């Protein structure tokens, strides 16, 4: 207990605890704080804050206050003029005659000096280290400044004339004497107009650029260091804290570090204040401040001169207003006219130079000068052109959410996307517009309240509807920003699966840009890729194909074949190529895209993995399964490595591979992957995301194949509800739900589902879609099973004709409808037609399967037998017997337990009875009965028939 503590004072509450905590090792301290938190949260928070500050106090108040006042400058202290010089006038230093003291600083003095050159007297400034200040460090600094100056020879930089040591060994150097005033002062006093001011600034840029060429960064550019002489010549001064970009040896490196702390807040670039690396862009920033000041008379930001810490935190938050906006506010004298002149291009020039990110500023002072020149001569400025920097990956993975945050809620998700987008955009549009885009997006996100959202998608939709309205209203006067935002919103919406509004926004963005920009502009191509990718995601593949083909051509022209943008356009186009005959082209496009992506982004990149996965899909569609599996597995491994096992992108590829494995009849492996993918998607994307629907659908197919029909129905129904009624995929769901209902002999339900499926296909894909006719064929089948033979015959005949027209006479898709048509025709009594149809099926199957030794052929044999027996023409019974015997041969060799074998045995037994071969009939019926019984659920009728025949005929 500290006896000095007065318990009545507020400090007593924390002081003692602070002493205690301050001396604890970190983990103990954290525990103690946590305890305290429970007792008195406010006090605990206060202590945490104090302890945190305690960790930062290294230099804080380490030196007495008086020292912080620095030199007497501004303190009413005698000025240099009145100060006692250490060397009196008349002293000789080298060949120079000192005429008087001009100024002094912490370590040196500057004298007015002259030298007799014979023909003329040269006047100059002589800089000398103060007596007693010649410590090694200071001498080093001094020598370094001299060194730097000796590198610089430019009419815009005060020239180094001489250097040496005084008699008592103090180093000195002599500089060209500049009779001038600070540039801002010069402009003001002379009342220079905008054009003259800018031309003056161009000279400053030229001088700085020459220093940069010699790898010198000034680091302290400000009006006081940029003098203009009476004849209008610009001279840069004070390279005292300049930095050598190369050749700084270790000894001087620490000096540079010390210097890094010396800065002028108003002109310092953010990286200086934040202690980040200094480059030539640091000077470009200061030139931007100067431009802003010369144009508007004001500084671009109000930086309060407090501690470095508060400056730093301010810099992180600060935004720069457009110079024209500042001028507009002045609204007096020349300002409004000037505002109009400055608005647009010059705004953009200033904001580009003042970009927070050094990499996004003008690449050099010369580039800034160049744009000033373009402005002065009314040519288009370069800041408008795309920087050529690679945008953040954006298109690929459309509809496959590129979020890395899990379960952080909608706001975090959107904010993350927004920031990524902002960065992407900032890379190629003006800082100002990027800033507008960012702040607009953030204001949209702020409106969302995750607690009130009924589901991410719903809430997001509302959010973006509001955003779209606001873009219309608030940005009507800024079409370029409008286009920017529409593109950003389209992108986010598409990523959230809100494809209809995304389409609308993307169309508008493209239209605006086509109107605003000249043909062949990168942004037009970019908007077109975006539009095409959304069209594709919506299933409008034909239009997407056209859009993307055009976009790819544009992109190739703007960016060249090896560019990432072209790789992305190729990737998108490949994904839009859906016709079987286009598959080879899609594979080619993807391989080209992959080659670029691998080279530019590396093998481990997500985008590379995504292209790989898409290649896997295309190969699978082309039935190149072995290659497809290999590619899928590679993509999966890479994505898992890059993103961890529970990322939505990983889930997408798990779904792909699982579907492939299901198709390859490896259901156990497939099921595991499906389950993993579904779990991830539910957790990360929420219950309404379209990616979840995709996986649920594929999983449903696997379950149907495994005859787990209830589970299949659940998965497919959930997928259906996510898709909603207007998506192509919804029709798939309906159709497979119908097929499941058929397997469950819920024929009426199935007919209803097939009807809806056909209508949905027609609505989303048009009347001529092959899938639609497959659904119609399925409907015919349901009607066949329901005994509605006439309707069934009509539907199946139409379906077969259309499928044949669309897919050719030997298409695999024809097989089942033809078979069902054959059965229907038999039932309708059109037995001859039935036999012809079924014989065609048999030939088709022989061709498709490459053999007649196939279960499916056996089922055709069975149908053919029934048709023949139904017709009962001459030779039909013999032909039927041959067909049945062939079918029996197929099963016998396999020792089959299939239902179909049971049915064939039943049919053969019946025929044997008719043939009078009772022994054979009894044997085959006895074999059939247990087989049929094993499939009693779907073969009740046949079981009863077999039992009746066994009981009666046997």
């Amino acid at each position, binding site marked *: 207990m*500290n006896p*000095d503590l007065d318990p009545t*004072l*507020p*400090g007593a509450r924390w*002081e003692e605890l*602070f*002493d205690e905590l*301050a001396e604890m090792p970190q983990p103990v301290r954290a525990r103690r704080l946590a305890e305290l938190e429970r007792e008195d949260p406010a006090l605990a928070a206060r202590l945490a804050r*104090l302890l945190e*500050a*305690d960790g930062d*106090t290294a230099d*804080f*108040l380490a030196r*007495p*206050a*008086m*020292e*912080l*006042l*620095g*030199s007497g*400058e*501004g*303190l*009413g*202290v005698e000025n*240099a003029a009145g100060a006692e010089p250490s060397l009196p006038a008349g002293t000789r230093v080298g060949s120079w005659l000192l005429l008087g003291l*001009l*100024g*002094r*600083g*912490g*370590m*040196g003095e*500057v004298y007015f000096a002259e030298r007799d050159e014979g023909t003329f007297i040269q006047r100059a400034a002589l800089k000398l280290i103060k007596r007693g200040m010649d410590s090694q460090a200071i001498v080093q*600094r*001094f020598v370094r400044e001299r060194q730097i100056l000796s590198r610089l020879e430019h009419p815009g930089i005060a020239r180094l004339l001489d250097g040496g040591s005084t008699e008592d060994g103090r180093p000195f150097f002599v500089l060209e004497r*500049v009779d001038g005033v*600070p540039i801002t002062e010069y402009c003001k006093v002379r009342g220079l107009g905008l054009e003259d001011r800018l031309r003056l600034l161009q000279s400053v840029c030229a001088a700085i650029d020459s220093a940069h060429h010699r790898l010198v960064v000034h680091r302290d550019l400000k009006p*006081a260091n940029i003098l203009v002489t009476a004849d209008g010549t610009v001279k840069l*001064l*004070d*390279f*005292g*804290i300049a930095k050598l970009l190369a050749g700084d040896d270790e000894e001087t490196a620490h*000096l540079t570090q010390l*210097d890094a*702390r*010396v800065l*002028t*807040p108003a002109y*310092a670039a953010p990286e200086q204040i934040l202690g980040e690396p200094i480059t030539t862009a640091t000077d470009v920033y200061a030139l931007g401040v100067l431009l802003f000041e010369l144009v508007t008379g004001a500084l671009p930001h109000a930086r*309060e*001169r*407090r*501690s*470095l*810490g508060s400056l730093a935190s301010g810099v992180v938050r600060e935004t720069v207003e457009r110079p024209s906006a500042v001028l507009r506010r002045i609204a007096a004298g020349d300002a409004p006219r000037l505002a109009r002149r400055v608005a647009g291009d010059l705004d953009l020039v200033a904001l580009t130079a003042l970009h927070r990110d050094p990499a996004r500023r003008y690449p050099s002072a010369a580039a800034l000068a160049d744009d000033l020149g373009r402005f002065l001569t009314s040519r288009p400025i370069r800041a408008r052109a795309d920087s050529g920097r690679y945008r953040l990956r954006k298109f690929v993975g459309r509809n496959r959410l590129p979020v890395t945050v899990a379960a952080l809620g909608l706001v975090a998700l959107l904010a993350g996307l927004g920031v990524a987008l902002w960065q992407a955009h900032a890379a190629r549009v003006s800082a100002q517009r990027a800033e507008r885009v960012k702040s607009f997006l953030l204001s949209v996100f702020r409106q969302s309240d995750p607690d009130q959202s009924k589901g991410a998608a719903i809430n997001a939709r509302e959010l973006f509807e509001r955003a779209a309205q606001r873009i219309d209203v608030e940005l009507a006067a800024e079409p370029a920003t409008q286009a920017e935002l529409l593109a950003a919103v389209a992108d986010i919406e598409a990523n959230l699966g809100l494809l209809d509004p995304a389409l609308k926004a993307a169309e508008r963005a493209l239209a605006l840009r086509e109107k605003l920009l000249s043909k062949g502009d990168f942004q037009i191509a970019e908007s077109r890729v975006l539009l095409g990718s959304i069209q594709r995601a919506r299933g409008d593949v034909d239009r997407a194909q056209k859009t993307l083909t055009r976009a790819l051509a544009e992109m190739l022209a703007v960016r060249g074949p090896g560019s990432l943008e072209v790789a992305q356009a190729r990737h998108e186009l490949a994904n839009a190529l859906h016709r079987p005959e286009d598959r080879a082209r899609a594979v080619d496009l993807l391989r080209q895209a992959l080659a670029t992506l691998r080279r530019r982004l590396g093998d481990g990149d997500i985008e590379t993995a995504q292209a790989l996965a898409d290649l896997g899909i295309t190969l699978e569609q082309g039935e190149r399964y072995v290659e497809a599996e290999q590619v899928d597995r590679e993509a999966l491994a890479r994505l898992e490595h890059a993103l961890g096992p529970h990322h939505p992108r990983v889930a997408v590829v798990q779904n792909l591979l699982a579907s492939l494995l299901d198709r390859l009849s490896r259901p156990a492996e497939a099921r595991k992957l499906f389950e993993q993918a579904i779990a991830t998607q539910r957790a990360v994307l929420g219950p309404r995301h379209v990616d979840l629907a995709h996986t649920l659908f594929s999983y449903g197919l696997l379950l149907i194949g495994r005859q787990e029909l209830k589970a299949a129905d659940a998965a497919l129904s959930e997928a259906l509800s996510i898709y909603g009624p207007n998506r192509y995929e919804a029709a798939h769901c309906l159709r497979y739900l119908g097929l499941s209902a058929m397997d469950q002999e819920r024929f009426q339900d199935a007919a209803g589902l097939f009807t809806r499926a056909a209508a949905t296909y027609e609505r989303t894909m048009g009347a001529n879609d092959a899938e639609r006719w497959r659904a119609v064929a399925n409907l015919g089948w349901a009607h066949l099973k329901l005994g509605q033979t006439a309707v069934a015959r009509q539907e199946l005949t139409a379906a077969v004709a259309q499928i044949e027209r669309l897919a050719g006479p030997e298409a695999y898709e024809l097989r089942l409808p033809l078979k069902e048509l054959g059965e229907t025709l038999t039932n309708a009594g059109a037995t001859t037609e039935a036999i012809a149809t079924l014989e065609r099926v048999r030939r088709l199957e022989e061709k498709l399967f490459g053999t007649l030794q196939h279960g499916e052929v056996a089922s055709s044999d069975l149908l053919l037998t029934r048709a023949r027996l139904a017709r009962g023409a001459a030779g039909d019974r013999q032909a039927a017997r041959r067909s049945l015997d062939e079918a029996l041969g197929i099963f016998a060799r396999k020792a089959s337990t299939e239902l179909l074998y049971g049915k064939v045995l039943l049919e053969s037994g019946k025929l044997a009875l008719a043939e009078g071969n009772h022994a054979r009939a009894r044997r085959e019926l006895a074999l059939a009965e247990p087989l049929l019984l094993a499939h009693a659920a779907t073969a009740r009728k046949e079981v009863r028939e077999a039992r009746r025949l066994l009981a009666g005929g046997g």
Partner: protein
Amino acid sequence: MSISDVTTLLRAAHLGDRGAEEELFARLYADLKRLARAQLARGGRPGDTLNTTVLVNEAYLRLAGGARLDALGRAHFFNLAARVMRNVVVDFARRRDADKRGAALRISWPEGHDPEAPSEGSELDLLALDNALARLQGESPRLARVVELRFFAGLSLDEIAGVLDVGERTLKRDWRKARAFLLAELQNDH
């Protein structure tokens, strides 16, 4: 100011005479300000030739002359001198800021910045610190006093221990707490 005056005033102030204290303060302020200004003008940077401690000690010697103040009187003097120095420094800072705002020109010559004397880019806002110190005074006058003695009057911890009559360990802890408090305050108020 005569020696006896100072001694008397100090005694009176110590006994709670506010008038005497104000009188002392005014005299010390004038003296210290003059000393400080002269010192700043001489070297630009006080650290070179004369540090703040010397300044205060000089003031002490001049005020107290050859008279030996008793321990209590001495302690009181330094407490007071520290407060005075705080005022001197803050007034300087305030005036400098005002001058800077008004100043259109500065000596524009190739001038080396002294790395140890942050001038324009001064990392510490003395005015903000002064406000924070006022808040510390409200919470813990003892800690505020340590800051005045250490930071404004430039006394060493040893000297402060003598003035405040506390152990070195306690003093070190207090100094640590005070700095943490002030830094936290400065970081808070942007």
